[in-house]
């Protein structure tokens, strides 16, 4: 059941330059939420900026009734959010979306996060570990300071590799290059990924070339966040219709039909 509530801000921390971690008191959302779902947030107290902002549920603590968001300040909405004070109430809608689907039979789980895309992947790693999966995490960042979540993933017992584009930390290059190397030695049963579209697309290609189930968390500009406005669509293949060599597709809503889609179903052409 999706809720519209005012959630108390319990803590706020700048974990990397312009990247904030906020915890919210939201017991009913924490109870229900599954990894890969998100909340839709009213960042301001007035009508400016107007629309809500979608942010993944970074982690949930069902016992304490808390949820966490981890976000990068990129514009007006996230700027205001970063300025909100501990103790303030934040109006949020959630949990929203389908979440990641970990197949029961999967044993080796590969998690690949690009930049702030690691946000929903911690919860996913937590769940995978709880389900006794072997978990390997690849984190890609532009430079050392922007590597987020390394300690957290490690504390969960995951094997973590890191790439930085400028080579300032660990593997130098794109996380997709790192992925290509790692799967040679450690072929996973499933790949889960979240990050910039260009990265997701490459990972989808890699996964498809070796026929591994890959799930990507997509981002699209949102209006309602609850499936009503059809503002947030992406192109998803219609399987039955792949005739005449022409791929047929539908527009699916990222908010409620996603945000997680099978990489093989996504049409990446825009």
């Amino acid at each position: 059941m999706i809720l519209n509530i005012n959630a108390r801000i319990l803590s706020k921390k700048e974990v990397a330059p312009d990247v904030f971690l906020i915890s919210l008191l939201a017991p009913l959302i924490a109870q229900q939420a599954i990894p890969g779902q998100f909340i839709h947030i009213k960042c301001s107290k007035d009508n400016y900026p107007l629309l809500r902002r979608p942010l993944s549920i970074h982690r949930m603590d069902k016992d304490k009734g808390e949820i966490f968001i981890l976000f990068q300040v990129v514009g007006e909405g996230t700027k205001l959010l970063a300025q909100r004070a501990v103790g303030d109430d934040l109006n949020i809608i959630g949990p929203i979306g389908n979440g990641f689907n970990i197949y029961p039979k999967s044993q080796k789980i590969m998690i690949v996060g690009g930049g702030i895309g690691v946000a929903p992947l911690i919860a996913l790693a937590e769940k995978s570990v709880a389900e006794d999966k072997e978990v390997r995490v690849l984190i890609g960042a532009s430079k050392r300071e922007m590597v987020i979540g390394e300690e957290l993933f490690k504390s969960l017992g995951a094997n973590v590799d890191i790439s930085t584009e400028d080579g300032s930390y660990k593997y130098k290059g794109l996380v997709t290059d790192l992925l290509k190397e790692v799967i040679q030695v450690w072929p996973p049963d499933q790949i889960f990924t979240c990050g910039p579209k260009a990265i997701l697309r490459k990972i989808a290609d890699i996964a498809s070339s070796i026929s591994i189930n890959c799930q990507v968390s997509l981002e699209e500009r949102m209006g309602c966040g609850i499936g009503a406005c059809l503002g947030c669509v992406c192109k998803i293949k219609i399987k039955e219709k792949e005739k005449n060599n022409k791929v047929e597709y539908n527009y699916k809503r990222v908010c409620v039909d996603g945000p997680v889609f099978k990489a093989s179903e996504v049409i990446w052409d825009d």
Partner: protein
Amino acid sequence: MIKKPQLEVEVGRIRMKNPVMTASGTFGYGEEFSPFIDLDKLGAMVLKGITLKPKMGNPPPRIIETPSGMLNAIGLQNVGLEVLVEEKLPYLNKFTTPIIINISGDTIEEYIELARRLDEVSQDKKIAGLEINISCPNVKQGGMAWGTDPQSTYQVVNEIRKVTSLPLITKLSPNVTDIRVIAQAAEEAGADVISLINTVVGMAIDINSRQPKLANIKGGLSGPAVKPVALWLVWQVFQTVNIPIIGMGGIMDAQDAIEFMIAGARVISIGTANLVNPQATIDIIEGIEKYLIDNKVKDINELVGSLKV
């Protein structure tokens, strides 16, 4: 004890518990909002615009925020008439709230066929009325083109009038030189109600890529930014026609809603506000009631067009 003010209104034979309804395209098929509000509390529900056949809509991005507003270019993505009738209406018919179907066509024949079928359907499915969308800026053919010319407005409404006895609401575009002549044409053609405004055409550009921010290049502007424009057009139409008006455009709270009623709207529609606050409709109904009590207005209908000039 304070006596509750009278909130009931009637437009074109559609009786509503209160004057707050939902604007097409911002309230899905109603069901999406059931986790947040009791759909039985609404004055009426207008569903996402429907076409004869399912429509894919425009490529993304479809939504861009602008100062105090948003541009949308959904392009009328919808499930098509038959799915609406078979899958969406049964759920909605569980509620007492009048259901209004917003219809769009590429050709006049499509409008007629839609109206004819819905008239038929209304025998066993509850349909309170039709809203003729001749003002959608986001589809190539049809849409807005119909509503920017009095002749074609007259023609569409008149042809639809012939095939159905359902109450007809004609939804007007703000993108015209003189909205009064369009409103008049709709009235003469047999519309029972005028609704306005649909969105204002606009665009936004990404200065880094030098591309339009919307894949569709242009979109329809809605939200608080357009409120002053909508209010003026409602007041203009109120002075022109004798049929009731449904006012909308940037209504975010009860104060905004009351402005529209004073300007001449008998009913108001909540659009973009639903996206921001899924409980907006209910908050506004309560806010209107409070205003009436505070201002000792016994009947909401007294407010309509009460602007002192």
